[in-house]
């Protein structure tokens, strides 16, 4: 085979034959296209002529009105308001760049936004309108109107635009809508979204997009030669999107945001009886209306560059060591596995050493707590007690038990982008460290896990869920923000039933009482760390404070000395539920760099519980 030689003459002859075959095919296919043309232009001329004459009729998509979002008590959190916007149909514009520059000169556009607008123009078919600016004032509408002839292909349109009456309140739960982007179109049905300019980007607005969006409608209109609409001929009205009712209680949300005002952090309140999220705060927040109105490049830049990262959803994505708030759960693990009994005492010297080591694991109280029971250890937050308990349990027992509280994996809340945190174990360390010597689990790491430090990382939502599990004595529900969806046409309401999670089995149900009793001591006992925050409460509270060390700070961030100092302070944490006898609310509070859990976070939790319980339980 390899010795086959080139036969030039034969090759050339073969090639000629092939070229002739190709030429004949080309001629035949050209004739075929011509026949098709005869078919269209001669045989069917009459038919298409009629269609062409009748082609003053244009079909337009009618975007549906987006559904409203209500809080639990029927207060509107997201609505649609009419607003004027400036739109361009690129293929009708003679000189796109010139027109845009002229609009900047008129003060109708900002020079910063031109890049974004050009990208929008490039990414869409030329005959689709592109929004240049949203929310024009009356004065701006007038300013454009007098110069309208200078801008062919650009016009003012009245559209409904998403409006959030409470601005930044609950924004991290509610989310926001923004312009439909290229990546959104990969997900959404282009037919359904013909004419729709905005879609949910995050939060409930994103998670409930299908329900909120509605069904697109069409209309046939008679147009003149300039394409201006003369008359509407036929209409297939769009079906508005469904209204969504949240479990969120606006009044409680406002109270929680007020209590946390001026600080960075998060508050999450859950009803332990059904998993309903009553309040979800992440501060600082931002005004959701910025996004629905087409956020300007400068505003977006400001939000992104803000050192307090307002766009970051701390409640769902912030990872904090739980600190001492983990102690009730670790205590319960000790009882469950029989590592301790409620009456047993541990002598606290103020520090703890591992056998055969001189390293001192310190208690927060240098002089020690003396002999403490589980009850005392929770109430006074004795570290030494939990060092010893953690060592007796071992990391893997702790891991398996704490997982039942919703730690180390996502809670499954019905909005996207939640983080799962870290619940360490031997296996976790093996899988997550590359170097072999880093994969070994050290006993010291077990100790500090027992007081909620080390690798352990939780979101505020997980802390609230853990608290709800304790409050309900093991019967938890999947946390939900959406309570029901109402179809506006039929008025039919679909409720989402609470979704029970697997019950946490404990070797003796009385163990729950022992741990909860410890948490009650925290609030109402003579030496409880949270007793100041529980003073004069009209109901009994079970709580636990915590502080988490700030491990590191971004190396490249620039802060002045005072600021740096502030950002190195410990995070303050607090978890609580009430009333103890029949829990109706479970709260977690995280105050970044707040310093003291009992001093800073606990009063916030109290304010939240007061607001809710004094209204609802009487």
């Amino acid at each position, binding site marked *: *085979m390899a010795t*086959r*030689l*080139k*036969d030039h003459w034969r*090759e*050339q002859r*073969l*090639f*000629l034959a*092939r*070229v002739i075959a*190709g*030429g004949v095919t*080309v*001629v035949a*296919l*050209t004739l075929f*296209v*011509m026949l*098709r*043309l*005869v078919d*269209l*232009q*001669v045989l*069917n*001329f009459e*038919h*298409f*002529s009629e*269609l*062409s*004459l009748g*082609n*003053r009729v*244009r*079909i337009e*998509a009618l975007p549906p009105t987006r559904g409203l979002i209500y809080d639990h008590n029927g207060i509107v959190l997201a609505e649609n308001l009419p607003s004027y916007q400036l739109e361009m149909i690129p*293929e*009708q514009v*003679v*000189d796109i760049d010139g027109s845009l520059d002229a609009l900047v000169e008129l003060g109708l556009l900002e020079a910063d936004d031109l890049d974004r607008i050009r990208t929008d123009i*490039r*990414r*869409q*078919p*030329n*005959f689709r309108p592109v929004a240049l600016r949203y929310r024009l004032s009356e004065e701006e509408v007038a300013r454009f109107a007098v110069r309208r002839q200078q801008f062919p292909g650009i016009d003012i349109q009245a559209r409904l635009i998403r409006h959030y009456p409470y601005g930044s309140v609950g924004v991290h739960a509610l989310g926001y809508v923004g312009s439909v982007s*290229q990546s959104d*179109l*990969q997900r959404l049905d*282009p*037919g359904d979204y*013909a004419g729709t300019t905005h879609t949910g980007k995050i939060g409930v607005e994103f998670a409930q997009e299908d329900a909120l969006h509605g069904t697109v409608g*069409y209309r046939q209109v008679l*147009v003149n*030669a300039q*394409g201006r609409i003369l008359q509407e001929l036929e209409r297939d009205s769009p079906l508005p999107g469904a209204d969504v009712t949240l479990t969120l209680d606006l009044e409680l949300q406002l109270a929680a945001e007020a209590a946390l005002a001026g600080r960075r952090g998060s508050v999450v309140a859950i009803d332990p009886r059904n998993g309903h999220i009553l309040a979800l705060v992440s501060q600082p927040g931002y005004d959701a209306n910025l996004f629905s109105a087409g956020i300007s490049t400068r505003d977006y830049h400001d939000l992104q560059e803000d050192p307090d990262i307002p766009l970051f959803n701390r409640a769902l994505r912030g990872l904090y060591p739980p600190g001492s708030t983990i102690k009730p759960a670790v205590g319960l693990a000790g009882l469950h596995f029989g590592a301790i009994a409620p009456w047993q005492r541990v002598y606290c010297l103020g520090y703890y050493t591992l056998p055969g080591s001189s390293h001192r694991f310190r208690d927060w109280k240098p002089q020690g707590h003396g002999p403490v029971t589980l009850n005392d250890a929770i109430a006074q937050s004795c570290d030494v007690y939990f060092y010893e308990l953690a060592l007796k349990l071992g990391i893997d027992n702790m891991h398996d038990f704490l997982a039942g509280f919703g730690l180390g994996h996502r809670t499954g809340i019905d909005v996207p982008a939640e983080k799962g945190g870290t619940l360490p174990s031997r296996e976790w360390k093996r899988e997550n460290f590359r170097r072999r010597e880093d994969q070994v689990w050290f006993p010291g790491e077990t100790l500090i896990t027992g007081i909620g430090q080390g690798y352990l990382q939780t979101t505020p939502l997980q802390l609230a869920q853990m608290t709800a599990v304790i409050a309900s004595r093991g019967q938890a529900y999947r946390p939900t923000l959406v309570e029901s969806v109402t179809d506006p046409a039929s008025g039919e309401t679909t409720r989402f039933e609470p979704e029970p999670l697997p019950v946490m089995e404990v070797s003796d149900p009385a163990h729950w009482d022992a741990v909860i009793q410890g948490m009650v001591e925290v609030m109402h006992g003579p030496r409880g760390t949270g007793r100041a925050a529980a003073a004069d409460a009209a109901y009994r509270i079970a709580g636990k404070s915590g502080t988490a060390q700030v491990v590191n700070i971004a190396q490249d961030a620039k802060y002045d000395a005072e600021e740096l100092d502030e950002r190195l302070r410990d995070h303050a944490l607090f978890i609580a539920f009430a009333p103890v006898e029949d829990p109706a609310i479970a709260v977690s509070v995280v105050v970044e760099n707040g310093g003291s859990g009992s001093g800073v976070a606990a009063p916030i939790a109290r304010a939240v519980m007061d607001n809710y319980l004094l209204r609802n339980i009487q």
Partner: protein
Amino acid sequence: MMMLDEPLDRPRPISVAQRLLTGLHLDGPLLFGILLVSSFGLFVLYSAGGQNSDLLVRQAIRIGVAVFVMLIIAQIPPKILRMWAPWLFVIGIVLLALVLIMGEVGKGAQRWLDIGVLRFQPSELMKVAAPMAAAWYLHERPLPPKFSETLVLAVLAVALPAALIARQPDLGTALLIAASGLIVILLAGLSWRLILLSGVLALAAAPLLWFNMHNYQRQRVLTFLNPESDPLGSGYHIIQSKIAIGSGGVFGKGWLNGTQAQLEFLPERATDFIFAVLGEEFGLLGLCSLLLAYLFIVLRGLYIATQAQDTFGRLLAGSISLTFFVYVLVNTGMVTGLLPVVGVPLPMVSYGGTSMVTLMAGFGILMSVHSHRKLVAQ
């Protein structure tokens, strides 16, 4: 037509124009066809683009640039082109891979590579590089290719760029590039039996392709089969385009008088659907004239291929000519509702720059093949 192709060793009076063409390595009839279609295109574009003279000037500049590129390439002897072929191909593959990794997304697909000042579509380079590489590869091998590793490698070399482009996703261009490479293999003398066999295999693979298509691609196929099912989406294009052509009749509605085009019912009228504007305003006569002009270019290209002096030149010239026809066929087929809507512009008439330069580069190669022949009789 024949006159220019006779060996020039016979003393014979030649005009200044002929001397100029010969000196610039240009082929008169081909140049005539190209300029005819391009200027006709500008004429139609003026109407299709809403009588926008800016648009016209920009397009004329593009034609100028493209003709210049053609002129440059015509100066390069085919021997040099053959040496470059494998490297162009490798560069093209690397660029295509880069596009998939870091390309800019435009209109739902990743096709562009942004290198500072220039945005560039590597798939355009591949339109030339793929048939060049195939011709280079088969040039050295004994032909016709038997069913052996020669054939398998040649097919793979065609399939690789096509697959990369299909991933962007740009199924239309992928198929066109695959076609340009396969044409080389067919021209090299692949036996009809094997051609038939692969045709049957391709039909059998069609369902597989269907399951690998993106939603919008499936939509286009479905819309093609029944345009009325989606009168607002992609079916709209076909319906309006058929109305435009059909209502043009034999003589057309007259320049600038097409209601479909001028009242803006016809979308993409300056680009992919400009054939329909021509049909509406110039009727059957206008369309057939354009088709005949295209036919002239293709047949002249095939003639050049038969006159080429080596396998590389023959295969490449033949492939460029036939691929050019495929572009014409796919666009006109799409606009007249014979083929599904794929984004292929009408060569040298549709508004747009990149594809024009690629086309002219191809014609430059044709001219190079034709004008660098050694003037000795075989």
